[in-house]
């Protein structure tokens, strides 16, 4: 609940199974991004509980939040790449700030770059990449730490339909390896083409789970 009694989400009961691929859809202001922020523990609910992997996010201490976030990958519409760092540095940034050895950083980086098909662009800076390539870098960064859960907030919002499908195929591949994927998007056509479980929100309420 926001201040002045406005609800971002209310009466929401939702269970997502381990290894599921779920689309979260609805119009702007429906509460999609709020739910993702709650799942990333950027916000805490004013009432109710969020349980991820058996742990209540509301009751976590600051250090537990740090540990929890290490098991979550995230992808945003605006990519959130660091403009002053190369593709390789952007991707290794995560294991680096988690204190992993350089050899491990390098091995993981080459793995995920190969996975997203960008091994030939590792020395490029974000501004030298197309929108689709930048989002693939963001996906690679989300995957480098082998997350159990990937959260994506409008990851194809800045991409044309073909590139959007390409990114969705990457998410499908990630999901096929056992990772739970939750993608927030308002692109109904894309959801239809990918064909996965869809949760629809409106004004903070769950209106459909199909």
């Amino acid at each position, binding site marked *: 609940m926001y201040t002045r009694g406005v609800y971002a989400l209310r009466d929401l009961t939702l269970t997502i199974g381990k290894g599921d691929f779920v689309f979260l859809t609805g119009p702007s202001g429906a509460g999609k991004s709020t739910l993702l922020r709650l799942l990333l523990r950027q916000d805490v609910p004013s009432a109710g509980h969020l349980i991820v992997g058996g742990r209540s996010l509301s009751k976590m201490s600051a250090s537990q939040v740090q540990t929890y976030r290490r098991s979550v990958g995230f992808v945003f519409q605006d990519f959130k790449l660091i403009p002053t760092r190369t593709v390789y540095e952007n991707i290794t940034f995560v294991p680096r700030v*988690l*204190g992993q050895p350089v050899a491990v950083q390098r091995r993981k980086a080459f793995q995920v770059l190969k996975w997203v098909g960008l091994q030939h662009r590792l020395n490029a800076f974000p501004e030298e990449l197309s929108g689709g390539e930048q989002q693939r870098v963001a996906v690679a960064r989300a995957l480098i730490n082998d997350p159990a859960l990937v959260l994506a907030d409008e990851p194809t919002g800045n991409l044309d339909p073909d590139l959007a499908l390409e990114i969705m195929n990457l998410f499908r591949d990630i999901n096929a390896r056992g990772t739970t994927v939750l993608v927030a998007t308002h692109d109904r056509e894309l959801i239809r083409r990918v064909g996965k479980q869809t949760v629809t929100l409106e004004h903070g309420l769950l209106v459909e789970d199909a």
Partner: protein
Amino acid sequence: MNAVVYAISEAWRSMWRRRGASLMAVLTASASLFVLGLLLLAGTSASRLLERWSAAAEFSVFLADGATPTERAAIERTLGSSGLVAGQAFVPAEEALRRFSRQFPDLAAAVASLPANPLPASYDVQLRPELARDPSVGRLAAQLRQQAGVSDVRYDRRWIERLLRLVGAARTAGLALVAVLTLAACLTIAGVVRLALHARRAEIEIMQLVGAPLAYIRGPFVLEGTLLGLTGAVVAFGVLVGVYLLGRDPIVAWAAGLVAAGDVRFLPLGVALSLVGGGAAIGCVGGLLAARTAR
């Protein structure tokens, strides 16, 4: 270890990227530390000088013309029984004249041309160092002044005390100035680090989202502040050494007779290291002030 390596590389990268602002922070820190160093240098030299003067301070008892042996014996008894005196020496009028001629050669001829020796005989009295500042010394001087055969008593400690008070006041004013400059340096460094923090807010957000430890998030900023302060301190130290080497001989020559070369010495090693460490500490505080918003 990884956190330290990461903090060093990121701090260096950040300082280099904003080298203009970094230079300004370094100069501000070095200005305040240079003033502090200069005050310490002047303070320790003044203390050393006053210590030497204090140790050499004499209690001089000038005799009246025609003081009789009985009166002199009485004076010696007064000095001896006071318990304040470490040693005393009778200086005849002729010896006083010779000393005067040695110390003031320009005036020696003029004094020699006088029909009679104008300088009186005296006693040079060495006080016991531990009692040299005791109030009873003043009472002894007053007692001697009343004694037959004494024309005057000169007690050097009075002006040394005044000088000590003056040095103390100058030190207090200097420390106030240093406190203001230190605060300015600290806030300048905090400002520069805050700029770095602002420029890297995207990275910080990502670090927060991936669950990076606080040491990784704040470490580079604290280290950046520390390095800026340390660099400022090293610059200040270098300038201080230069000023000392260039200024020592002219000062000793200018104040010849009052100041000896041994009085003007560089800061003791511990003080010098504290100065450099202090610079790093100022920077560290500035970095901490700025970094506390990143969590």
